């Protein structure tokens, strides 16, 4: 009797996260209420262990499990990104959850499970695997969005995300089915070679491509499938919004990039124009609507739509440099946005009050460090030099110019300039206005000194450092991204 050797290394980060996730869920009923916080530490240790496991993956490149999973520097890069996002989100959530009275350990379990799904999306080499990863992520996220279950806004965020999310998933899945019917396979590289033979039903392939595009566009929130974003981001708990705007979005882009560059390069002249138009719409809608918002979460929701539009600019460049710049930008955007949401979470009051832009008035005097960090994140999101946002955008737009996408780059630059208007509004409120000037009456206990937990401070400090590090010394990470982008292309 011989046991077949099953390699576990290729999915080591996912396995570790799953085990820790199950442990967090199972220990919860056995832990007395005052001691629940150790479960969030357990989840954090799980993320650290998975990071260590991910380092081992670097030495295990190749295709595994009949080609369903691929380990290459592209997937390793995204694993790192997802794990960093998960770690920062766990740290940034604890104080908020305790304050809002929803400190259930399922939160951390779901966060870990969602990260498992995201890692599978980054490492999937096959359409069904992408679908499974996407659903693991989405189903966990539906619950997280509604985590404040007695709050109507949170309920609504969950319902909207759930209904529209599963609606979009059905489109993606139908696209996969048509692609399977046309090419007789779901493996990305086999689809690509089947397309090159020319002996396939092109109508099925085009319909499948269009449907998959709808599904992916929804998941990464690009026009015209971005309508769900503002409501869901506004209603979800603050740390969840921060996490959603970077994690599942980055995972969506990872799968989007791999499917379209590995499986469908033969059709790139057909889907290029769709990306072009969608990019223009996404940027413009996002930036225009962001200017009109008074709620900071909603403003950042539209800002997140706009950033997806910038990413599509580099996507449309159709070059390895474009892919590398997207990977770099996703990392830069993640630290900036997570940092910004950590600040919002620290400044807001229980019941998610004090989240309008006007209510940031006086933050500059009361919490100079917090205000300074927030300013750094907002300037980074605008794309001011020295910050990660600037270098990221610079690489993306340079990739677009190298592919002669002059008009698209000009539109993107104009949009970036316009975004300065709304990113400056909270900054002006923080430094140039007195609290109470907005005419709102604030309760006396609201002006009590802020208690910011150590974990939140760590998240904000790490994010600030990362924003400057990526802004000043981008070459290490960009080189790594470039080496993996050539593999995908």
């Amino acid at each position, binding site marked *: 009797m011989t046991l077949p050797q099953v390699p576990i290394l290729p999915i080591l980060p996912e396995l570790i996260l799953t085990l820790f996730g199950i442990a967090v869920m199972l220990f919860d009923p056995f832990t007395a209420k005052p001691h629940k916080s150790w479960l969030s530490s357990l989840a954090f240790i799980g993320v650290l262990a998975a990071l260590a496991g991910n380092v081992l993956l670097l030495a295990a490149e190749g295709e595994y499990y009949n080609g369903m999973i691929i380990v290459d520097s592209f997937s390793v890069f995204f694993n790192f990104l997802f794990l960093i996002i998960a770690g920062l989100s766990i740290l940034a959530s604890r104080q908020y959850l305790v304050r809002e009275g929803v400190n259930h350990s399922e939160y951390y379990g779901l966060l870990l499970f969602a990260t498992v799904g995201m890692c599978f999306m980054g490492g999937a080499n096959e359409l*069904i695997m992408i*679908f499974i990863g996407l*659903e693991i992520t989405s189903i966990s996220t539906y619950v997280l969005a509604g985590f404040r279950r007695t709050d109507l*806004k949170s309920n*609504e965020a969950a319902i909207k995300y759930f*209904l529209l999310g599963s*609606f979009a998933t059905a489109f993606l899945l139908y696209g996969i089915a048509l692609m*399977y*019917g046309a090419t007789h396979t779901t493996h990305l590289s086999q689809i690509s070679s089947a397309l090159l033979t020319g002996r396939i039903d092109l109508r099925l392939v085009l319909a499948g491509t269009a449907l998959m595009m709808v599904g992916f566009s929804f998941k990464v929130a690009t026009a015209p499938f971005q309508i769900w974003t503002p409501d869901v981001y506004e209603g979800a708990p603050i740390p969840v919004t921060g996490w959603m705007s970077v994690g599942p979005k980055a995972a969506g882009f990872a799968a989007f990039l791999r499917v379209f560059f590995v499986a469908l390069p033969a059709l790139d002249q057909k889907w290029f124009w769709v990306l072009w138009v969608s990019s223009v719409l996404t940027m413009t809608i996002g930036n225009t609507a962001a200017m009109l918002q008074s709620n900071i979460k909603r403003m950042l929701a539209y800002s997140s739509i706009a950033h997806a539009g910038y990413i599509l600019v580099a996507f449309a460049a159709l070059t390895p440099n474009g892919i590398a710049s997207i990977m770099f930008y996703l990392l830069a955007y993640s630290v900036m946005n997570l940092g910004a949401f950590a600040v919002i979470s620290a400044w807001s009051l229980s019941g998610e009050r004090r989240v309008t832009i006007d209510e940031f008035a006086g933050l500059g005097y009361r919490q100079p460090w917090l205000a300074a960090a927030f300013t750094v994140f907002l300037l980074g999101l605008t794309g001011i030099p020295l910050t990660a946002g600037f270098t990221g955008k610079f690489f993306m737009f340079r990739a677009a110019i190298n592919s002669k996408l002059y008009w698209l780059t000009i539109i993107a630059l104009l949009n970036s300039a316009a975004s300065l208007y709304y990113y400056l509004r909270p900054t002006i409120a923080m430094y140039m206005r007195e609290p109470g000037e907005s005419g709102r009456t604030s309760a006396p206990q609201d002006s009590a000194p802020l208690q910011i937990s150590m974990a939140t401070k760590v998240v904000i400090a790490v994010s600030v450092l990362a924003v400057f590090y990526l802004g000043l010394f981008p070459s290490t990470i960009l080189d790594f991204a470039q080496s993996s982008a050539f593999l995908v292309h």
Partner: protein
Amino acid sequence: MVPLNYFLILAAILFCLGVIGFVMKRNLITMFMSIELMLNSVNLTFVAFSRHINVLSGQIFVFFVMVIAAAEAAVGLAIIVAFYRNRESLNVDEVDRMKL
């Protein structure tokens, strides 16, 4: 043997019915059932293709889709129940706390 196209056309019709149901209906449960109809039409497509090209993989995919649909159903129902407890309504037009 029934030709492949019949299955595909039936599946496409079912999928469109699901889309129409999702867009037209105002009841959360009905909208949710429309999504299930869409997923099942995809299952039909998978099985039809799988039989046509004589490869079993398509039928295995259906297993995964069914299990995922069940997980989605459980979570979706739970979310809808939580909403109903707070709002005493299943009408999607009352999901309106955050309109512009």
